């Protein structure tokens, strides 16, 4: 007998039971939990972000983790039994578009790209992020509780780029207005209106082919233009009053862009550089040395060829471990072992989701699993989703780990969180338990039922 015969019966039975299931199933919102509640998650295997505690207890109170260890639950705490389960920090989506784009092809919903030719570096993505975005609950079900949302540019991994979908029509001809795509922001994925954690945490700029394209076509032009821009920023910073009374020579950037670039020029704001080719990585490292700027590499598919250089410069890398194809001439050395090689060299890495970590941000955990199967130690893979992103963006200890004082971003998994067969059974953001619901799950439940009235009546 074909299994689907049995399944058909099971579906029918479930359909009949659907209303009851809706009351008890894990996909339904739990009662709102106040920030003052004390929660103890007991008996689970705890991945703290940089260590493992078997059969441990995590206590969350006032939005933060207050203790982690082998002790029992404090009296009065709401106890969540995690026996046989795995407890992990909420994952941090890096190079993400979460809350900044609802539907890829609907440009009115895209807050990630800006094309005004008078404003590039000053573009502040934090103003456009939507706490009610339906992308957030979906990502949360993939264990993601924070995101670094970045402006997109022609070299971004964002967007659905498959040629099957775009060929014949072009990709809209989008060009970033200048060398800089704008400034990134950190958000949390908690339900509610207050998702912004910190705006303007990093500046974003494409290098390699995309950056060269902006400068006129050649890499040699972009580097010169970049250095010239920084010199203008420094000139402006030293002579603001002269600039205000029009006593300074003409500068190529707007005042807003010049202002935004001061912390980049003085090395306090990191510059996320999207770059792929090994030689480009070397040149960008050299540029950073010469200009005294602080770098974060994004992409770095050929990074393993120059892993020692990256490690020596102390520059962290945001990468996608499944990029292993020579998709173009600046990724000819792409390898699935890139993450393992960079980690082994001592580079701090963070693992990205797919397609710009918006709709497919939830796949970051699978990407980490694939990095493990290609040589990255398991603990390093967990760190690359948790403590490392926090560290890279200056938030070490504040989130991305299960440690006293860190935000109460905790996910209880049915098993190893890197396995597709594992699912979260509880998600906390800032100590608040989140509903395990999403628009796709609502669609699922609507179409699983069979009622005399059309699906539109199944709300």
């Amino acid at each position, binding site marked *: 007998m074909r299994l689907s015969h049995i399944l058909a019966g099971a579906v029918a039975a*479930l359909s009949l039971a659907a209303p009851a299931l809706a009351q008890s199933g894990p996909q339904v919102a739990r009662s709102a939990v106040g920030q003052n509640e004390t929660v103890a998650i007991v008996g689970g295997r705890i991945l703290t972000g940089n260590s493992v505690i078997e059969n441990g207890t995590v206590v969350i109170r006032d939005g933060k983790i207050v203790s982690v260890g082998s002790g029992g639950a404090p009296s009065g705490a709401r106890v969540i039994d995690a026996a046989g389960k795995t407890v992990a920090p909420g994952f941090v989506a890096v190079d993400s578009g979460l809350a900044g784009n609802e539907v890829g092809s*609907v440009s009115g919903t895209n807050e990630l790209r800006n094309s005004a030719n008078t404003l590039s570096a000053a573009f502040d993505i934090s103003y456009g992020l939507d706490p009610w975005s339906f992308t957030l609950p979906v990502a949360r079900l993939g264990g993601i509780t924070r995101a670094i949302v970045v402006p997109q540019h022609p070299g971004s991994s964002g967007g659905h780029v498959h*040629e099957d979908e775009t060929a014949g029509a072009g990709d809209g001809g989008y060009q970033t207005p200048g060398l800089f795509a704008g400034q990134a922001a950190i958000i949390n994925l908690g339900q509610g209106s207050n998702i912004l954690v910190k705006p303007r945490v990093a500046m974003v700029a494409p290098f390699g082919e995309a950056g060269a394209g902006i400068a006129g076509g050649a890499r040699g032009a972009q580097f010169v233009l970049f250095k010239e821009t920084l010199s203008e920023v420094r000139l402006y910073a030293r002579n603001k009053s002269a600039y205000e009374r029009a006593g300074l020579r003409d500068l190529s950037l707007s005042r807003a862009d010049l202002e935004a670039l001061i912390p980049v020029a003085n090395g306090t704001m990191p510059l996320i550089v999207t770059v792929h080719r*090994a030689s480009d990585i070397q040149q960008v490292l050299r540029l950073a040395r010469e200009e005294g700027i602080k770098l974060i590499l994004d992409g770095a598919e050929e990074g393993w060829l120059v892993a020692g250089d990256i490690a020596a410069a102390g520059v962290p890398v945001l990468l996608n471990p499944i990029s*292993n194809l020579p998709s*173009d001439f600046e990724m000819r050395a792409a390898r699935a072992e890139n993450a393992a090689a960079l980690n082994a060299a001592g580079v701090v890495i963070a693992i990205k989701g797919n397609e710009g970590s918006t709709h497919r941000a939830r796949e970051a955990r699978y990407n980490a699993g694939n990095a493990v199967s*290609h040589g990255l130690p398991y603990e390093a893979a967990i760190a690359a989703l948790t403590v490392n992103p926090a560290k890279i963006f200056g938030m070490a200890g504040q989130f991305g780990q299960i440690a006293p004082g860190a935000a109460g971003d905790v996910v209880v998994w049915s098993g190893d969180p890197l396995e*597709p067969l594992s699912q979260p059974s509880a998600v906390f953001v800032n100590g608040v338990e989140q509903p395990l619901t999403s628009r796709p799950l609502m669609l*699922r439940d609507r179409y699983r039922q069979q009622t005399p009235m059309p699906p539109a009546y199944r709300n």
Partner: protein
Amino acid sequence: MIGHHLRGVSLAAITCAVLGLSACATTGQTPDDTAAKPSKDRTLAAGLDPATTLDPYPSTYQPLPRENFAVVGATVLTGTDRKIENGVVVVTDGKIAAVGDASTPVPSGYRVVEARGRYVTPGVIDVHSHLGVYPSPGVSGMSDGNEATSPNTAQVWAEHSLWPQDPGFNTARAGGVTTLHILPGSANLFGGRGVTIRNVPSITMQGLKFPAAPYTVKMACGENPSRVYGGRNQSPATGMGNMAGYRAAFIAARDYKAKWDKWREDGEGAAPTRNLQNETLMGVLDGSILIQNHCYRADEMALMMDMAKEFGYRITTFHHATEAYKLAPQLAASGICAAMWTGWWGFKMEALDAIEENAALVDAQQGSCAVIHSDDAELTQRLNQEAAAALSAGRRAGLNISEEHAIGWITSNAAKAIGIADQTGSLEPGKRADVVIWSADPFSIYARADQVFIDGALTFDRSNPAYQPTSDFELGQPGYGLTAANVTEGAR
């Protein structure tokens, strides 16, 4: 399957065509009369008769060197809803000879592959691939997947764009993919013919063409054709324009078919002029060419199903089918496969309602055919993981789905979706020995394909560099010959 092409053509006409009899028929004669009094030569010049040029670019595929062997000790997922612990798979002359438990005899002289603690499945089949037509590197000069010059390009064949040196074939094989269905893109209402291939390194397209696999034709619903042509201020610019375009094409194909049928029957006048566009659609009408229809939305799939009735043909598979779960009973009742992703959603309006449970909900219908596909050079390397995510979502929904059933989404159902289920897709005696030995449960993120056999020949071995082919393109490129992280296994 090629023979099916001849359905609907009169027996007499076939006899005439095949035997090249002169003066085969005259007006008003019955076939018997024809045989008795052949009066007209219907042999056409080379290349002008569709019936005699069914396979003008024939497969020259030969299996790689192989030996008889047996895999023992593994957990075997057969692709037929069956799981055998400590199983034995015997391969003789490139075919599955026996599959069973530990008591299954291994003939003497066979090489024995010890696979205790590992898993064995049929070779993975990707029913939606653009490898070779949209190869890596995806640069100017290599983008050959969309003949986006007219809404109906049923006359183009993906096999004529296929670059066998695409490095993606090697990485797909390292992910257990033994069969690929290569399609043109979705810019057009009719994108052209697809081709099914054996995933072996080859200098020519013909060298990897799957022998006797049926031809397919790519159709596309929805946003892509209307965006591409509407953007040029031509039809189709809307969904209704799409429908009018398909219908006009099938009317033309019906007319074309009638002309050929009539000419074969009565031999009157000059033979119709061969038209490659109509010829492909005529193949759809006579059942020899299988429709592979890019179609996301449930309402559009329902229109396509009615149109198939209007013109009297069959739809084999809907691709992407992000809303298949809304139409699951109708798809199952019509015997149409749905090839789906698990995790892709939201990139355009017709993908907005995609859910991870799509495959599981389609699959739950009796008589269904749920398939997981890639449409992507990276995802094709991990179809087992995409199936695992679909399985996980189904279980989250309360469906009791076993791994031995879910493996069918990337093996046996996939074979059915492209018309090769009689050849491959399951570990059953007589089938081609397309076999993957996985390092662990293939539904685990950590599983790697250790060894991949195609027609019984070892084509990839994760621990043996002698079985890790590289394309010509990869030779001498940056990083070539070096190992990252001291790892010397895998394709890249």
